[in-house]
């Protein structure tokens, strides 16, 4: 197909029709994504409080106050710690489980269901179960740990352990989901490649994994990593149900602080500024991961 000369009447007609067909989608993008984003950014430069009549423009004061705010700094640190713990375990754990489950033949479905169950359950309902399990006197976990010689540990109410406990629950939820994605990726790898690799001398499982499986799972791994990062960054429901940010603020995360500022304290301007920061973090991380991983991913 040879491209038509630009400026010819036919090209102009096509361009016009193209624009007309694209317009509804463009309009929707503007109305439901870009316009609210613009409002958000504008709001973040005001001192708007829900219900107030007067609104003042305060420029970047919200951002300055935020980075000076110890509560915000703490929530930022907690969020990064949480992500740093959850992300690798959820991705590599998901991969490991997928490899093990994939090798099963008759029991595969059973394991799939077992690992996928946490994904299908509502986290808020499950959090209530966790609350009972981790109850220091009524639940089974504290006595179990004591019997194992760890002493009396209250996983949810001890500031040293609370964030780690939430992270474990986050992993418990993510692993099953990631496993399903990896299983799909594994099923898509052609058998012939393993046979070819075997002919070329890849005799051991580790060889086959490193030469065939891992490279071909590249696109899946990238997708899993990006979605897991976003999910971990947005940790919220377990915090609300199990700890409300406590004890001593050790489980306050970005999204939870944002919710408090906007919907409990009604400081809309400040909450908007936080949302912008969260958005920048998430977008930045996703782009970074995409860039780095893109170079190493082979799309078959």
């Amino acid at each position, binding site marked *: 197909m040879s491209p038509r000369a630009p400026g010819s009447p036919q090209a102009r007609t096509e361009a016009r029709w193209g624009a007309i067909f694209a317009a509804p989608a463009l309009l929707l993008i503007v109305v439901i994504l870009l316009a609210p984003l613009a409002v958000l950014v504008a709001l973040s430069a005001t*001192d708007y*409080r*829900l*219900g*107030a*009549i007067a609104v003042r423009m305060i420029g970047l004061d919200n951002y300055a106050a935020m980075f000076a705010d110890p509560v915000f700094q703490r929530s930022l640190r907690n969020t990064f710690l949480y992500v740093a713990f959850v992300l690798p375990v959820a991705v590599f754990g998901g991969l490991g489980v997928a490899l093990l489950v994939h090798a099963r033949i008759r029991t595969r479905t059973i394991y799939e269901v077992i690992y996928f169950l946490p994904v299908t359950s509502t986290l808020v309902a499950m959090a209530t179960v966790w*609350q*009972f399990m981790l*109850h*220091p*006197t*009524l639940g089974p976990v504290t006595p179990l740990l004591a019997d194992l010689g760890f002493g009396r540990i*209250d996983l*949810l*109410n001890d500031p040293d352990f609370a964030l780690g406990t939430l992270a474990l629950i986050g992993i418990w939820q993510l692993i099953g989901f990631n496993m399903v994605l990896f299983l799909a990726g594994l099923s898509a790898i052609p058998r012939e490649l393993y046979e070819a690799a075997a002919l070329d001398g890849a005799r051991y499982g580790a060889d086959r994994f490193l030469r065939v499986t891992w490279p071909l799972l590249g696109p899946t791994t990238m997708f899993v990593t990006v979605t897991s990062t976003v999910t971990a960054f947005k940790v919220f429901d377990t915090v609300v149900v*199990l*700890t*409300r*940010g*406590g*004890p*001593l*603020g050790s489980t306050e995360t970005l999204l939870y602080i944002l919710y*408090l500022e906007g*919907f*409990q*304290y*009604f*400081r809309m301007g400040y909450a908007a500024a936080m949302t912008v920061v969260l958005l920048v973090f998430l977008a930045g991380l996703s782009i970074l991961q995409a860039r780095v991983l893109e170079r190493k991913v082979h799309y078959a």
Partner: protein
Amino acid sequence: MLTRKQLLTGTGAATLAATLPAERAAAQAPVTLDVVHAYPSFARFFAPIAEEFTKANPTIRIAFRQIIPNYDELHQALLRGALTNQLPDVTFSGFNRLPELARTLAARNQIIDLGPLIAAEGATWASENFSPRMLALGKVDGTQFGMPFNASSPIAYYNPELVARAGGDPDAFPDSWDGVIALGARIKRAAPNAMGVSYYINSFDSDWLFQALVQQGGGRMLSADGKTVTFGDAAGLAAVRLARRFVTECGMELIGADQNRQQFATGGIGIIFDSPARLSVITGLVGGRFPLRTSPFPITDKQNGGVPTGGNAAVIMARDEAKRRAAWEYVKFSAGPLAQKIAVEMTGYLPTNLRAAGPEFLGSYYQQNPNARSAALQADRSLPWEDYGANGPRIHRAQQEILTSIMRGDLTPEAGLARLVEQTTALMRAA
């Protein structure tokens, strides 16, 4: 003039003819009031009260909006409604949110002063129905914006079996905090796996219980004009010292509020302090495990001490005259003895109406339900649930963290109190 529903139920015509004064029936076209309240479980009394109200006032229909989970979210929904002009005609605002709501709406001219309406009921009506302390709970900056509907102050819940095992007398609950702590310590020794006392200001969902500990000792959180923090005094220090002693002497562990209630219900805590509005919930949790008992909140300063009052007040936001008149009828009925009887029997709240305690209303109920009586016994101790202004919830979170540090022993009570005062003052001034 009948609505379809009244025709269907067949009650409309009869009631209209029999009970309504002729001039009122002639003057009033049917009005539907748009009402919103918080806490889904409250439908248990809001619905029957509305039914009784419509029986008495057939021309007014009550339409409830979607129920809102709690007072803070109700507050938020109302503020949104104020912006979009979609306020309900009547709402029931939490006492701790009322000042903020009234000030915001008064500035926008979207709330009405109930003072003139009360005055129009006659000179003695107010004093016959309400104690001045109770009415004062609905006042903001001296104006009666709210009509107290539900009221409660914290009470003690205790496990008489644990008390008896510790050598205490289940029929004589201590009326001083030294007594409570001594009893808690004995319970801890008698049942080492249990907590003697749990006073969970480290995880309670508002600052209500902390205010109670200060106010019972004669302290106040704020000066009378609400501008200066005043709990940095001896009463405040006594309160934070008590908080630490619950941990050191009574074996209290710092766990969540719900976890506390669960553990208490299984016999793992001797004494807890909570809202009487939770009486039916806690009774249900306990089931038949032990004969649950309650007691009034111990008060150290018998002269000036008191307890902060939780609950809610009816607020009228209707715009046109006919609706305002109908709304006042509904609010008046809700604060009246019959409606109060219904609300109290369903929850454990205090009646806000003086006449509700009479023999034809709640008299026999209290005889049959002694656990509900504790709240009523301290009705004359009611003090306002003090409000720090727009930053109230933020101040509560900051205070809770410092209180947790004091209870853990990370901060001494003296240093902790100084930090409490300093941070509260700073946050009150903050934007």
